[in-house]
């Protein structure tokens, strides 16, 4: 919110300046105030501008909005353990909090847990925030946390996060406001795991999820699966300055065109999931805007290293040099994305390695490697599908570039129906699409570890596996960063995965709706928009 000039000041001064401007201080008043502290007039002037902007950005309380997600069905849920779609995340985030929460770089921040300590990344102690109450008035205690976490291990809960909860071998309350979690093996990312939405904290003993009794910024006034949820501001919310709207109605409109129409006709004020093709329609309509979240979402080329032709290293390199990444970014994503570098950690992630040189679009080198591979003019089918967003367009771009170096790619388009079970990494050359994951560890473990079920390109590297386990146990941030950098280099050089671009996530909103800032877990501020946004007067 505060711009760079404001950050020049200390926190106390910032508050003083903002307060003065809010009370109507003029530029001259402020110059006097800061000049007394010995600050140059030019800088002080800049601060005045920034402070004015920040005050204009001060949240206003009140108002009601209707928000549409991308799906709705009778399977909608308020049970944190059963959340499975983005709409479930958005709904549950209004009513519940976790022990930790994500910031814009996916670093875990304190939420219901005020602080935490660890021994060897294996034994973790979380100190709970005091004075937090559930919507029915009951104070939050360690017992609630133990219950909320333990229930995921019970098969009867049918938790989608069971595999993440199983390594927590012991979860005990060591004091009324303290919980100790012991893991079966070290994991420095436990606070990240606990920030994922399935680990929202509910009241001990809760079995009925027809309504939501959490600690969240909103209370649940109405919940009709497949129809709508209505959230009402929680006047006793523990986090000062969050939760501004009086009411949020959350619905789902699966069809993108219908969603955009609903926004433009004034039926809803915020929609998740806008296609880059609809952006112009929204921005050209007066009073509407598009909110971009740069994320780790990618559609990737999968070249099976255990099948011909990708078993040939030169062929894989030829394909990677042949990506016209910039064209894909501008023409296919309409600039809503960033160029990728054939490794899955995107620039918003705290472990992204900027030192890895960008692989260029270089037809000469592609031609060189392609000729060395000896594949020749055999027709090579590339399997693509609308199920992997933009893969059809990407395949067509590649087919054209391939023709320029004598490569004969054949675009084989298959229906989205059944794509993930029948086609995904079952062909020598095909496409996958990977949603952002909350941590580098989870992403790499799921898709790049040698024995991973979804090791798409069948890339095997024991050294990588070792590094992956070591990084998970490492608590020194700098050392971890180095390890993840090494892993990114390995994937970039050796794996059969080509990642030409990372795609942004787009949401549409009325311009009056303020306070949106990206949290790259997903759309709608990482599904956590409700407590942050407000309506301008």
């Amino acid at each position, binding site marked *: 919110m505060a711009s760079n000039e404001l950050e020049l000041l200390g926190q106390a001064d910032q508050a003083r300046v903002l307060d003065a401007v809010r009370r109507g201080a003029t530029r001259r008043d402020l110059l006097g105030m800061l000049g007394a502290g010995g600050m140059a007039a030019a800088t002080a002037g800049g601060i005045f501008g920034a402070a004015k902007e920040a005050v204009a950005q001060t949240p206003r309380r009140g108002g009601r909005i209707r928000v549409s997600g991308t799906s709705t069905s009778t399977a909608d849920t308020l049970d944190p353990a059963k959340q499975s779609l983005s709409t479930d995340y958005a709904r549950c985030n209004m009513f519940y909090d976790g022990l930790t929460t994500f910031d814009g770089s996916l670093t875990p921040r304190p939420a219901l847990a005020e602080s935490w300590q660890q021994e060897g990344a294996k034994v973790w102690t979380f100190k709970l925030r005091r004075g937090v109450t559930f919507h029915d008035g009951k104070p939050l205690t360690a017992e609630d946390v133990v219950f909320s976490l333990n229930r995921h291990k019970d098969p009867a809960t049918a938790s989608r996060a069971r595999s993440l909860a199983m390594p927590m071998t012991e979860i005990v309350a060591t004091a009324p406001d303290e919980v100790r979690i012991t893991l079966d093996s070290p994991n420095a990312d436990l606070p990240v795991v606990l920030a994922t939405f399935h680990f929202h904290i509910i009241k001990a003993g809760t079995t009925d999820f027809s309504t939501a009794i959490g600690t969240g910024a909103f209370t649940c006034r109405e919940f*009709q699966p497949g129809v709508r949820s209505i959230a009402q501001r929680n006047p006793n919310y523990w986090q000062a300055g969050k939760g501004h709207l009086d009411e949020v109605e959350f619905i789902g409109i699966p069809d993108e065109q219908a969603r955009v129409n609903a926004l433009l006709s004034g039926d809803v004020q915020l929609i998740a999931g806008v296609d880059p093709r609809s952006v112009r329609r929204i921005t050209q309509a007066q009073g509407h805007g598009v909110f971009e979240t740069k994320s780790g979402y990618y559609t990737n080329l999968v070249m099976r290293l255990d099948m011909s032709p990708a078993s040939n290293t030169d062929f894989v390199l030829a394909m990677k040099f042949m990506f016209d990444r910039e064209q894909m970014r501008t023409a296919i994503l309409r600039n809503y994305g960033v160029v990728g570098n054939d490794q899955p950690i995107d620039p918003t992630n705290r472990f992204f390695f900027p030192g890895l040189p960008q692989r260029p679009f270089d037809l000469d080198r592609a031609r060189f490697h392609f000729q060395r591979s000896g594949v020749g003019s055999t027709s090579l089918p590339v399997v693509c599908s609308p199920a992997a967003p933009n893969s059809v367009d990407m395949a067509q771009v590649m087919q054209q570039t391939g023709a320029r170096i004598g490569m004969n790619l054949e675009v084989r388009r298959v229906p989205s129906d059944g794509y993930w079970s029948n086609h995904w990494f079952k062909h020598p050359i095909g496409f996958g699409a990977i949603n952002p994951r909350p941590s580098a560890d989870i992403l790499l473990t799921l898709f790049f570890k040698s024995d991973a079920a979804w090791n798409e390109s069948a890339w095997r590297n024991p050294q990588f596996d070792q590094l992956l386990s070591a990084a998970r146990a490492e608590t020194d941030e700098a050392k971890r960063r180095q390890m993840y950098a090494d892993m990114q280099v390995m994937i970039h050089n050796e794996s059969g995965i080509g990642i030409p671009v990372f795609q942004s996530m787009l949401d549409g909103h009325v311009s009056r709706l303020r306070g949106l800032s990206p949290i790259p877990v997903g759309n709608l501020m990482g599904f956590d928009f409700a407590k942050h946004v407000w309506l301008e007067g």
Partner: protein
Amino acid sequence: MLSLVAARLALGLVSLLLVSLAIFAITSLLPGDAAEELLGQYATRETVAGLRASLGLDLPAHLRYLAWLKGLATGDFGRSLASNMPVAQLIGSRLPNSLMLAAATAAVSVPIALTIGITAAMYRGSAYDRTVSMLTLSVVSVPEFLVATAAVIVFAVQLRWLSALSTTADITSVAQFFRVFALPVFALCCVIVAQMVRMTRAAIIDQLRAPYVEMAVLKGVGPLRVVLHHALPNAIGPIANAVALSLSYLLGGVIIVETIFNYPGVAKLMVDGVAQRDLPVVQACAMLFCAAYLVLVTTADIIAILSNPRLRHP
């Protein structure tokens, strides 16, 4: 006459059975099953096998079909594989919406269509008749998604008179009912009115050419009386059939309109069911549509029989 009606009903039941078999066979041909669709990108060999066993999908197809048929005979539609809710409850929550939309559309479209059709037949060959012909032809050839989308863009997005969404939860007054239903009803009317108009016009003209009408005219009967009293009763059979065919479309065929207006009807439930390989839901919806179709067509048949003295008094 009773035996005629009974034979129609028996035929209907046989068709239902054949339809259920066809649906079952066709959905079995689709690649993948509910277990794979539910797990989507997350499917591994073990999880698929586990889920398949728990859903009962590991049994041979003919056993699954017979079990389902047995359930149906006792009024049990089974449970949805995707959401584990009883299919009857799923359909029960959507059917009233579909019926409401169908009823509203029928209430608007049938009187309009009959009036236009009859007047066009009365003044056949006139400028009015030619205009009606041209308009109905052009309206029927425009796909409904175009009509619906254009209507949303004009009336909801540009003019902001009406709502782009049709959420039945919002209805608390007549004005809101109008606001919610105006656009989908308009889009659907465009599709079905034209067909009914043309059929009505053709049926009546056919009768007006008959000798008995000529006789009536020669005896000095006025044109309105000729049409309403003499021609229309004899044209009711084909008109009822045209109306029934158009209305049957309103229940199962409105998926595009349901999608564009985000209207929670049965057609969308069925399409979602197909995407998720949720066989119990697909089967139940298909049976429902088939049954509704049969009811409408049989009703039209009975009306035709009743309106025909030769069949009424054999």
